[in-house]
């Protein structure tokens, strides 16, 4: 066997299994879901083999006149999810930026320890981390008990089952996603530029706004996107902390699949989540992608 054909064989052995696996169980299911979103819902669940654009119409404004009038409720749920995800991004940013900034400037030993502390929650159970906030926020929860004992309030506050509770829960679980990209960009910051700005007479606020923040912006945008994408379709947090009152896109999709059994409509909703994800990624490519591929991945 020639060296070249042996290399080919090796490459084939290494590549083929994973490639086939990912095509069969990742690409094909997504394609089926896309097709499904354009099919007519069957009467008893499932789908009929007929082109039917009204799954998207129900959401976007051209509902099937045979069955219903257009109801903007789905669009409202979509915007509400976008709003909650965007607020989550904003809050994680505000919470993480100062801390990431500080940690990036610590001496090596402390830095590594802090990074360890940031990474650790990522390895701990998500559902357990959410459960804590039920204990804290509910009517008989710790925050209410403490406030009542201190006589700051005379009846328990309604904190759980609100949009605020959802955002707090999401911020809590997505903190590492925002922290690490910001930390990486602060770490790379060229402090000579900061000193130059100070030497040229800029005050601290101006130096921050004109020099430091723009230079760390790529990290912020990266973090914003990897927080926004999972936050938009999240159904666990609204389910646990939002109760039945607060419906988000994720809950709506779950209902279509496990309760209402309208799979084509659920698929159309999922396509909407995917479209929003692609828009977010597109923004990322526009702002950051020009710098070239990620060297860590070797691609």
């Amino acid at each position, binding site marked *: 066997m020639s060296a070249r054909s042996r290399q080919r064989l*090796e*490459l084939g052995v*290494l*590549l083929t*299994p*994973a*490639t086939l*696996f*990912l095509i069969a*169980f*990742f*690409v094909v*299911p*997504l394609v*089926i*879901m896309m097709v*499904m979103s354009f099919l007519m819902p069957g009467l008893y669940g499932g789908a009929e083999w007929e082109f039917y654009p009204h799954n998207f119409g129900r959401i976007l404004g051209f509902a099937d006149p045979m069955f219903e009038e257009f109801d903007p409720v789905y669009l409202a749920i979509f915007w509400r999810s976008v709003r909650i995800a965007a607020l989550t991004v904003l809050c994680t940013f505000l919470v993480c930026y*100062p*801390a990431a*900034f*500080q*940690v990036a400037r610590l001496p090596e030993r402390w830095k590594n320890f*802090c990074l360890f502390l940031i990474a*650790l929650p990522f*390895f*701990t*159970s*998500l*559902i*357990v*981390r959410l*459960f*804590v*906030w039920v*204990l*804290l926020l509910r009517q*008989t929860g*710790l925050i209410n*008990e403490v406030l009542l004992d201190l006589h700051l309030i005379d009846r328990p506050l309604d904190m759980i089952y609100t949009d605020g509770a959802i955002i707090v829960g999401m911020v*809590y679980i997505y*903190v590492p996603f925002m922290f690490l990209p910001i930390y990486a960009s602060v770490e790379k910051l060229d402090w000579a530029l900061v000193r130059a700005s100070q030497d040229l007479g800029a005050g*601290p606020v101006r130096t921050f706004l004109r020099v430091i923040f723009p230079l760390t912006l790529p990290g912020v945008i990266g973090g914003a996107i990897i927080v926004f994408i999972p936050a938009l*379709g*999240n159904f*666990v947090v609204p*389910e*646990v902390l939002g109760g039945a009152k607060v419906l988000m896109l994720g809950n709506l999709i*779950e209902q279509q*699949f496990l309760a209402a059994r309208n*799979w084509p409509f*659920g698929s159309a909703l*999922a396509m909407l*989540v*995917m479209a929003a*994800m692609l828009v977010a*990624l597109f923004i990322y490519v526009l702002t950051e992608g020009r710098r070239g591929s990620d060297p*860590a*991945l*070797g*691609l």
Partner: protein
Amino acid sequence: MRIARTLGRGSLALYTIIFFGFIYLPLALIVVYSFNANPINMMTWSGFTTDWYLQVLGFKTKISENALYLESTDQLLAAVRNSLVIAASTTAIATVLGTALAIAIHRYYFFGKSFYRVLLFAPMLMPDIVLGIALLIFFVAIGAHLGLVTIIIGQCTFLISYVFIVVSARLAGMDRTLENASADLGANEWTTFRKVVLPQLMPGVLGGALLAFIISMDDLVITYFISGVDITTLPIFIFAMLRRGIKPEINAIAVMMLTFSFVVASLGLYFRSRQK
């Protein structure tokens, strides 16, 4: 000016401490309350007890004599067993496939690498609910029985990417001159791979496997959609408990899970820092 700067530094440091408090105090709270003897209101301290732990582990306690507080230990143990079986299988499959892909992409030149960039990034970026329902539709369409096998396949679709990234990072940091030295000294390619490449690669492979195991144990959303009716994993079990209303033994289960993942993650990160 100087005072202002010192003040600024001080408040930033103080803020960072509060930030870490925000992350860890809630977790510390569960640990404290998992020892609370009060069966009615979890938040009111009425004495120290380890009964919740004993009860979760299936021992008879004063609490379990009261029928109101009986959560099925058998179900919990079944969920733990399922989670371990799934995590072990997915880790094995994803580690082999992800490592093979990483080696192929790092070591060989071939047409279509950018295709793999999409194929490997997409499963990690895809919102998990989208992947979950796509897999559900797919498995139902091909008539597969939803259960352990579908969960294992479903989780592997994104775990391969995690293993790939960890192993790739290791490959990128490896010293290729050692391989040349091995070849110069007369070792054939296979011997070089076994004796030189593999030992260097191993920390990356183990790191990737560990990450895959932990993510698999914790996966809720994708598993939720493709688990069918008769398989419950640990995260799904807790999710269901939370939906029904909280009972004190959740604290004890949560603390045991936290301890497990802290130990595994600390070991992993410790070994990684040693190898640098």
